[in-house]
Every structure is written in structure tokens, then in C-alpha cells.
């Protein structure tokens, strides 16, 4: 039983990490109707920036304090993500206004490749460490109920809390601010939003920047846990089923979808895996998403899509 709980908790924690990446997808889709395949690449790019800046800042400014270095690195990485957002809007999005979704999707595929190459050119392609002072010790909970206790990773708990804070902040932003309202208008209909005077270009830069910051946070958490390496881009591919499950337009959906997929993957691997040769994790999330697509394409919390003749 304790083992089951551990697997469950492990799954929840992994799922939380997926959710962080999925958040970025949902944000951009919600606000611009574009599905950003490049989110994974953005996570890696941001993480690389953070890792390298935190290495380089002490040598540039000659300070010793780890926290200060990290804060400055965070600010620099954030600024870089702003530049990326601005460039994407200027060079790509502006020219593809009102193209169909598939064209935009393929454009983001192109951006993915570009960011991959750029990141590695600017920051190198080794594995880098991120150290933001997250506790690495495991903790044993509930030792009284279960012998030996249930093993939980403190780092994961911290990550979950950060993610929860981020979600709360984003929800407030979308619902309560006028910029948030403008973003939702743009997501609904670009042309209509333009015609009432919403500055599409600035909105898009803001959205991609916010998604970039989300990517940065996700990158820091993932990178702190696993080290910053290329395989982070496969994250994007793992996070896709999450948004299908949760609904492309729903922030809580991204969270819950992530948790479901995280738990589902772990549980199926442990309990179903041995029957079919293992390695189920590769496709479990996708097949689950496939099932959802067939019966409920809008996911658990998304809006229903209606086609008019």
C-alpha cells in the first residue's frame, strides 16, 4: 500500500511538471488561438539561459552571493524571453495573421527548430546544472501509518507549490485585468479584436512573453531536478496530451490533465507494464489523448468547438 502511495505521489509530482509546460500551451492558445509547438523549445531555451547566466554573472560582475547571482540571472533570462517574444511577433506572427491554424502550427514547428539551434549555439550543448537552492532531500511521511513511511521528494513539493502560485497568478491576470480581457478577445477572433482597436501586435508580444516566463519557471524546476539538457524538448511532446485531456483553453484543465497523465503513466508502467514488455510510458499519454479525441475532443474543461456552414 505504501508502495502504491509512493507511486501515486511520484506520478502526481511528475504530472505537476507536465502541467507547468502545458500551461504555456494553454496561455498562448487562449490568447491568440495559436498552438505553440515551440513551447518545449522555449522551456529548454529559457532553462539554458538561466543555467548559463547564473554561471556567467558571477564572473561578469564579480559577486559571490549565490542568491544574488540567481536573481540577476533570472532577470536576464526573463529579459531574453521578452526579446524572443518580440522577435517571434515581429518576424513570424505579424505576417501570418488570419492564416488557418495548421499554417500557424507549422510555423511554430519551424520556430522550435530555430530555437533549438539558437539555444545550442548561444549557450552550448552540454548538460548544465541549475541551482536555485531547492532542497534535494527526500522526506518520509506518515511513518506512523505505514512502516518505513512514504517517500516524498521535498523538491517536488516545492515545485508543486510554485506551480500552484503561478496558476493562481495567471488566472487572476486573465479574469481580473483589462489586458487579460483583451487577450481573451484576441483568442476568440483576431479580426474582430483588431477592429475594436485592440493592438494585436502588443498583445501578442505580451502573451508570448508571459508564456516565456512560464517556460522559464518550468525550465528552472525541471532543470534543477534533471539538469538542463536537450531531452527537455521532448517535454513538449509529452505535454501535448496534457492539453488535449484538459482542454486547450483551460488553465485548471492543464493542471488536472497533467496530474492525470503523470499518475496514469506511473501507475500503468508499474502495474500494466510487466504484461506487455514494459516501456509503456512512451505512448500511454498519447493513446489516452487519442481516446479523448475520439469521444470528447474538447477535453475535460475546454470549450466545445462549433462549425457553422
Amino acid at each position, binding site marked *: 500500500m505504501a508502495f502504491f502511495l509512493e507511486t501515486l505521489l511520484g506520478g502526481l509530482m511528475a504530472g505537476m511538471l507536465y502541467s507547468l509546460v502545458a500551461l504555456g500551451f494553454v496561455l498562448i492558445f487562449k490568447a491568440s488561438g495559436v498552438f505553440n509547438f515551440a513551447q518545449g523549445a522555449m522551456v529548454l531555451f529559457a532553462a539554458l539561459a538561466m543555467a548559463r547566466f547564473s554561471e556567467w554573472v558571477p564572473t561578469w560582475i564579480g559577486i559571490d552571493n549565490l542568491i544574488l547571482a540567481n536573481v540577476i540571472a533570472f532577470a536576464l533570462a526573463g529579459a531574453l524571453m521578452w526579446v524572443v517574444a518580440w522577435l517571434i511577433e515581429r518576424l513570424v506572427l505579424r505576417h501570418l495573421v488570419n492564416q488557418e491554424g495548421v499554417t500557424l502550427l507549422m510555423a511554430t*514547428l519551424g520556430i522550435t527548430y530555430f530555437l533549438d539551434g539558437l539555444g545550442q549555439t548561444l549557450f552550448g550543448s552540454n548538460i548544465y546544472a541549475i541551482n536555485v537552492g531547492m532542497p534535494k532531500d527526500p522526506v518520509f511521511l506518515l511513518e506512523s501509518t505505514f512502516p518505513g513511511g512514504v517517500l516524498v521528494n521535498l523538491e517536488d513539493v516545492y515545485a508543486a507549490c510554485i506551480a500552484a502560485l503561478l496558476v493562481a497568478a495567471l488566472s487572476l491576470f486573465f479574469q481580473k485585468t483589462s489586458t487579460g480581457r483583451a487577450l481573451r478577445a484576441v483568442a476568440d477572433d483576431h479580426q474582430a479584436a483588431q477592429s475594436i482597436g485592440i493592438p494585436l501586435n502588443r498583445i501578442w508580444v505580451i502573451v508570448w512573453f508571459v508564456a516565456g516566463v512560464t517556460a522559464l519557471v518550468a525550465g528552472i524546476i525541471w532543470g534543477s531536478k534533471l539538469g538542463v539538457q536537450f531531452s527537455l524538448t521532448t517535454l513538449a511532446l509529452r505535454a501535448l*496530451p496534457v492539453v488535449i485531456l484538459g482542454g486547450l483553453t483551460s488553465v485548471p484543465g492543464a493542471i488536472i490533465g497533467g496530474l492525470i497523465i503523470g499518475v496514469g503513466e506511473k501507475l500503468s508502467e508499474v502495474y500494466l507494464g510487466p504484461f506487455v514488455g514494459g516501456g509503456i510510458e*512512451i505512448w500511454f499519454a498519447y493513446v489516452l489523448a487519442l481516446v479523448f479525441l475520439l469521444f470528447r475532443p474538447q477535453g475535460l474543461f475546454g470549450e466545445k468547438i462549433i462549425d457553422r456552414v
Partner: protein
Amino acid sequence: MFYRENGQFKTSYRADQQIFPIAQDRWLILALIALAFIAVPLMASDYMMRAILIPFLIMSLAALGVNILVGYCGQITLGSGAFMAVGAYMAYNFFVRIPGMPLVPALLLGGLCATAFGVLFGLPSLRVKGLYLAVATLAAQFFSDWMFLRIKWFVNDSPSGSVSVNNLQVFGLPIESAMSKYLFCLAVLVVLALLAKNLVRSAIGREWMAIRDMDVAAAVIGIRPMYAKLSAFAVSSFIIGVAGGLWAFVYLGAWEPAAFGVDLSFRLLFMVIIGGLGSIMGAFFGAAFIVVLPIFLNQALPELAGLFGMTMSTAAVSHVELMLFGGLIVWFLIVEPHGLARLWSIGKQKLRLWPFPH
């Protein structure tokens, strides 16, 4: 233009409907085919054939298949690597397990298995489209990755997971040398390309394009969306499956599942986008581009860097390659969504007036 294209009046619908209605185009294609079958094997080096021409031919075939699905029928797919894998592995199984099975039938049977796989994973297209369909095809891709990695039957219980074939022959002629491989691939490509072109300009091709352009209206005319979409998946995955068999048997010789991963799917999609969606010729352009570009960059970039007194590692070249790919995709989507094929036909249009307007 250098020759006059006008003044050729058609007196029958048959003449108007043929593949190359303009006489000069017919001559051009004939010349091209003669060049490909006769001149190239005589003149090209072994390296040229093995490293450039053979992969180009096979990738063109695969891109053709992808174009039918994505360009003509409008169904996006990120799972074409999986179709190639199924074609390759099933052809392998037929070849190795049935004694005396000749090469060509094995490849065709592999293609038919890919068809079955394609139709199965094409079923979601009846329910969803666009991004959602892309996710469904990714499911096919990852499932196939796992299937060939973990289910030992497919790899003939080879412990390392990698398989190989040798001793290929067609009608008793061995397919070992670069030239024989090249000619074999060329022959398969020409035949399948012809069949594909026929399909695309017939009633079924129009059905596919109708579904792509407006599927609701298509239903009202009496086109069955289910039949149109699934037939697109079927034909497309057959061609891609045969290409996969060729890629494994003729080009790689020995392979493991990683050879057909999601990266391959992306490359195929890029070939089709850059080459031109909805155009048979586009598949060739795109394949040429994607096959030749890395090789070109590998030679050219270090030279360029050398001019500035810098050295460039192969890793650095591959990074630049990534950036160039990404940048080009975006550039094409913005400037010419119909790809190189459209640029080509625009070029021909301009050439009609320059240097000598008739």
C-alpha cells in the same frame, strides 16, 4: 521563352486531360527520365549515388505519400515515420520468414501492412482535424516506436533489436552495387509516381481536394468524407510504407527502430511544406532540398568560417542546420505557402516573357 508553348490546340478531351498537355513538357519529362536512367548511372560517382541520389529518390517517394495526405487531402500527419517503420519491418518479416520470398512482393506486402496501420490510425480523422489530428498521428508514431522496440516478434527475436538484410535481388539481378540500387529505386519511384499522378487528377483526387477545401460542402455534393479521408490515408501510407521498405533494405541495410522516429516524421512534413503542398513535383523539390542541404552545409560552412579565420565543429554545423531549417520553414510559410513548386511555376511564367516574348 526559349520555345513557343502556344498554338497547341487540343481537339479531344483526352488530349486536354493527359498528364502533360503541352508538347514541350512531354519532351522535357522524357529527356529527364532518359537522363536519370541512362546518363546518371554512367556519370555519377559511387559516393554521389549512395550519399545523395539514393536517399533523394527514396525520400521523394515518401514525401509523395505524405503530400497526398497533407497537401491534397488536407489531413495533417506527424506519424509518417511510423508508416515507414511498419512498411520496413513487415517487409523484413515477409522477406526473412518466408523462404524464397522475392524482394518486390515483400516490399509491396510491407506497403499493404502499412496501409492497414494507416487506415487504423487514420480513423481519428473522421472526428477531428488540425492540431487534434496531429496529436492522434503522434500517438501512432510513439506506439510504433514502442511496438518495434518491445515486441520481439517483429525483430525476429534479435536480442539487440536491430535487424539487417542482405543478398537482395530482383529477377536474379543482384542489388548490391550503388548503380543497381539507384536504378531499382528509380524504377520504383517512377512507377509509383505515375500511379499517384493518375489518382490525383482523377475523381478520387478531386474528392480529396474537396475534403481539404471544404468538407461540409463536399458531403452535400455526395462525397463521403469517410471514404475520401480513409482512402487518402490508405494510398498515402502504402506509398510511405514501400518507401520505408526501400529505405531500410536498400539504403540502410541494417536498422533499428530509432531510424524511424518522430524526427523523421518532422523531416517528411518539412519536405512537403518546403517543396509545395498539393503538388507531385513539390515532393521532389522538398526531398532534394532536405537531403542536399545538410551535405551542402557540412562542406560550405566550415569553409565560410575559415574565411573569417574561425573553425566550426560538426556540432556547430548541425546547430546552424537546425536554425536554417526552422528559419526556412517560417520563411516559406510566410512568403510562399505553396513552396518551391509554386516558385518554379511562377518562374516558368516569367520565363515565358523573358528574354523573348513570343
